[in-house]
């Protein structure tokens, strides 16, 4: 009997989430706005001394990216949990981790990828060394999917709770630390005119590990949250 294959299911789910995001595009811009806002706060708070700003720019950009990603995490599963479509997803005949991966991918495309567009602009405003722009973009490209993947485990654990928000940050932020360290260190090193290959290969390692392990953990956590 005819049935849709797993890869078709993946694309369907991805397309559905992108469609939903597009139909709520005002919400889509929120993490991006937040990212820009947090970064503009720093020069206001610590003064506009160019050398200082240039030195801490990698850290600021990455801390802001991390917070922006964390704020948007709840959206991965919240509405699906509320209207019961998540329940249906868990009853699918397809392996749930693959479906989870589709949803996380959609989430990243909507909230992580746009950071790539504004990051160079903000880096310029903070006076980051021009040598580091390429590495900055590369770390965002490699790092934000890892944030979404790790974050999805945290959301899956807390989606059933009424006050999941604070707990979520407590669960997720410690797990974000390696990404933060290596990405900002890569930019730092690049700004000093040195090669950042070690940091970049480490981030590639995180990406592959997160891609292969986190959907399984997220699926297990979702099953737990639904029961």
């Amino acid at each position: 009997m005819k049935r849709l294959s797993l890869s078709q299911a993946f694309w369907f789910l991805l397309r559905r989430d992108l469609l939903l995001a597009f139909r709520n595009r005002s919400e889509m811009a929120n993490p991006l706005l937040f990212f820009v806002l947090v970064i503009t706060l720093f020069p206001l708070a610590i003064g506009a001394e160019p050398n200082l700003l240039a030195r801490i720019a990698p850290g600021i950009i990455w801390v802001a990216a991390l917070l922006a990603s964390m704020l948007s995490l709840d959206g991965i599963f919240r509405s699906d949990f509320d209207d019961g479509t998540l329940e249906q997803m868990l009853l699918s005949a397809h392996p749930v981790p693959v479906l989870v991966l589709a949803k996380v991918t959609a989430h990243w495309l909507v909230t992580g990828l746009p950071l790539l567009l504004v990051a160079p602009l903000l880096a310029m405003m903070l006076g980051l060394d021009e040598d580091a722009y390429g590495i900055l973009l590369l770390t965002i490209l490699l790092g934000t999917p890892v944030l979404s993947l790790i974050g999805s485990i945290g959301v899956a654990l807390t989606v059933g709770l009424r006050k999941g928000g604070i707990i979520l940050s407590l669960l997720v932020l410690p797990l974000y630390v390696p990404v933060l360290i290596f990405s900002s260190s890569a930019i730092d090193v690049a700004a000093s005119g040195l090669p950042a290959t070690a940091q970049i290969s480490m981030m590639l390692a995180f990406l592959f590990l997160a891609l292969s392990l986190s959907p399984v953990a997220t699926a297990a956590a979702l099953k737990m949250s639904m029961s």
Partner: protein
Amino acid sequence: MFKWFVKWFHRMGSPPHFYRFAGSWLPWLTVVFTVLTVAGLYGGLVLAPPDYQQGESYRIIFIHVPAAWMSMFIYMVMASCGIIVLVWRMKLAEVVLICSAPIGASFTFLALVTGSLWGKPMWGTYWVWDARLTSELILLFLYLGVIGLYGAIDEKRVAGRAVAILAIVGMINIPIIHYSVEWWNSLHQGATVTKMDKPSIHWTMLVPLLLMALSFKVYFIISLFQRVRAELLHRERNSRWVEELFRS
């Protein structure tokens, strides 16, 4: 042998059996703990000579190092319980997991505080964002996350499975956090006792250190047993064995 182990494993998994077993062991463990602690502290604070380099202030290692070891050890205990919970859905493992978390968090806190007290005379500052210190701090957050998540979920069986997943995920992350922070910044000295070649610590200092480490382990078991007993009574408050226990 294996059959015997499986049987033992199942018997230990039954709450009333574990309750009685832990209760009968507690007095003995307390005696062992007292002897070890007194011996370790006397050896460390009185008998051991001052260090050639750090003078008297190195003596804090007799608390600091065992506490730091415990902070890692207890997390491993929790992650192992997590695997048992997810695979065999054993109730006792859930209870052990969640009862270990506050003890682990306290040891982590102790290691951080003693470390920072040590850091002032040695490094000239209470707190440096050093590799060991930072990863220990993150470990504390992981413990707090486990405690917080367990507290937030009302249905305790579900909560047990949730923290099991979290403990396992955290376990994968601990080496990653450890190495990432280590590369990022390194001031803390290398490992002393666990080095493969001969330990670079004099035996007069090593013996009390190991005694203290052992005493901390025993303390963990005592504290764990008491917590688990209390939690079992609470969880099984409607069951027959608890009722019988209080009637007699």
